[in-house]
């Protein structure tokens, strides 16, 4: 193979990987919402529909041993990072096959085998923990990096600023991935911060801060790759503001009374998934038939995993007495 051929090959592989991750995240989110709507299962999710490009770019740019800390709105991130669908859906649906055998739930999924060390339901709380994960990497002499995902709203918390300052002060390999979907629960971003660009917050901590198109998986891939390279070289953290949108509101079933219809319509018209598909076909990186097949495979993989999870048992009641303290002597029953 010539260098040009190899580059073309790798561009095609990357495109396929990104599109696969995006469609898998979309299929998972859609299937869960469909199941809730149909009454197939009674659970709560915080849909990530619309934000898939970030998860795909991030997951493709990171190594398996790189760490990820994410949030309740993080199923897409975890799919991008490679958490097996059975573990993910099993935890969301509270089954024994879940990542935490039903003890964590959607907001608290951990899968250390692919680097997912913590998922939090406390806005901003993952940030300081990510700093500690990166500190451990340095202490252990590893060049792995830590990515931490959070929303625009999380950048208003004290935890966020404490963590940013500490990561910058200690020049740790952390990639701060702000998924700016322009809303925090029911409140638009402009009502809660007096700055135009969230990325400018990084300046206050002496950290590079970049605003990128969070609906373009290649832009995310590129930015995360550069940040990771910098982190691995011992050159400190990076803040990435990935501008995106949440199509389904804060939680599944959110009536979105607060949402200007024209804003939602414009965002939906710019849906990152059909947009990327179109781009790949035009660039001849993927044929329409290939794209169709990837989409079908994603739906089939989710359906297969869901079937397995729904036929798996509920967690055993004895779970309450394991994985609590390592030594249960003297611990109240």
């Amino acid at each position, binding site marked *: 193979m010539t260098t040009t051929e190899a580059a073309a090959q790798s561009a095609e592989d990357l495109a396929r990987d990104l599109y696969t991750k995006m469609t898998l995240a979309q299929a998972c989110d859609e299937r869960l919402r469909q199941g809730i709507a149909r009454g197939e299962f009674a659970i709560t999710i915080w849909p990530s529909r619309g934000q898939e490009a970030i998860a795909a770019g991030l997951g493709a740019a990171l190594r398996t041993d790189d760490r990820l800390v994410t949030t309740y709105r993080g199923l897409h991130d975890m799919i991008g990072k490679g958490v097996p669908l059975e573990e993910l859906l099993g935890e969301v649906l509270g089954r024994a096959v879940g990542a935490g055998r039903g003890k964590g739930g959607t907001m608290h999924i951990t899968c250390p085998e692919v680097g997912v060390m913590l998922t939090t339901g406390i806005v901003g709380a993952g940030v300081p923990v990510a700093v500690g994960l990166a500190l451990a990497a340095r202490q252990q002499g590893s060049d792995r990096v830590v990515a931490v995902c959070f929303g625009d709203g999380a950048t208003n918390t004290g935890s966020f600023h404490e963590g940013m300052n500490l990561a910058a002060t200690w020049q740790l390999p952390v990639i701060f991935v702000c998924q700016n979907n322009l809303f925090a629960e029911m409140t638009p971003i402009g009502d809660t911060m007096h700055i135009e660009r969230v990325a400018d917050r990084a300046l206050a901590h002496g950290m590079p801060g970049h605003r990128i198109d969070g609906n373009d998986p290649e832009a995310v891939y590129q930015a995360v790759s550069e940040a990771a390279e910098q982190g691995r070289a011992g050159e400190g953290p990076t803040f990435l503001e990935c501008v995106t949108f949440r199509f389904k509101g804060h939680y599944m079933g959110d009536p979105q009374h607060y949402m200007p219809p024209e804003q939602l319509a414009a965002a939906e018209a710019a849906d990152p998934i059909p947009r990327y598909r179109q781009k790949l076909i035009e660039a001849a990186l993927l044929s329409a038939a290939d794209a169709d097949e990837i989409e079908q495979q994603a739906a089939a993989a989710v359906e297969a995993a869901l079937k397995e999870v729904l036929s798996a048992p509920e967690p055993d009641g004895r779970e309450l007495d394991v994985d*609590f303290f*390592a030594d249960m002597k003297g611990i109240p029953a």
Partner: protein
Amino acid sequence: MTIAAETRTLTMAGAINEALDEALAADPRVFLLGEDLADPAGGVSGVTSGLSTKYGRDRVLDTPISEAAIAGAAIGAAIEGRLPVAEIMIMDFITIALDQIVNVAAKARFMSAGRTGCPMTVRTASFGGLGSGATHSQSLEAWFMHVPGIKVVVPSTPADAKGLLTAAIFDPDPCLFLETVALYGTRGEVPSGTHVVEIGQADVKRSGSDVSIVCYGRAVVDALQAAEELAAEGMEAEVVDLRTLVPLDIDTVLESVGRTRRAVVAHYSVEFAGPGAEIAAQINSRLFGRLAAPVQRVGARFRPIPSARALEAAVFPNAHLIAEAARRATGSPP
């Protein structure tokens, strides 16, 4: 429990320093982080003095004034298998780190079904009794007892401080290690070399047959003084030092109170809804028919802690109040 042959007299602060020193020397996974820990300060109370000089600033990390990030960074490192010892300078400041300790550390092992753990130690100190006022004097250990997932350790002697801190640092679960500034200068015999006191074992600090005083931390010192006062009146008090609140060695308490049939529970945290309420309830439910008197409680009054000496003294327990409670329990006139 390892009992070393040699002992020396050390202060409480010196014993804590020695435990940290020996843990840093013994295991490269151990590191310290907190505000002003490194030399020349060596901690605001000098407890970490000399350690950054000996082990370097990569093992003794000075942090910004960021309690949430101190706890969070310790937790993240612990999740990766390191053995961090985070210092929250004064216990009142732990309010800022509470989310991390309560919502991340305490739940890491459980929520991940054992795929991650959090072998972190948080050292903090109660500054009560120094006239520092309401935001620099509290004993908030009851909060942590109330959250499933955190061990709560409160030493009362230099030897216990060394042995319990060593146990906490190497414990696979998160431990809150509560020091008492007013006791930093107290002296006692401390074993040289590795000394581990198992977490979850109370210690009878004085034997007696008439009344059991169940206590921990600074209240142990007061209880021993009260026992002297009572002995002069012909009453033999047994002083049970709990040493750890979670896990709670209720068996030792029940054995003692089962014999004496009278109990006083004493501590410096607020009496109302304090640790003593749980202990008294357990004594009552397990020994109801055997008790010769209701369990007496002595704790801090339900007030913000005032600064002026005279007022502060009126809020905290003391040896005299503990002796009074023992007299109530035994029906002896004051």
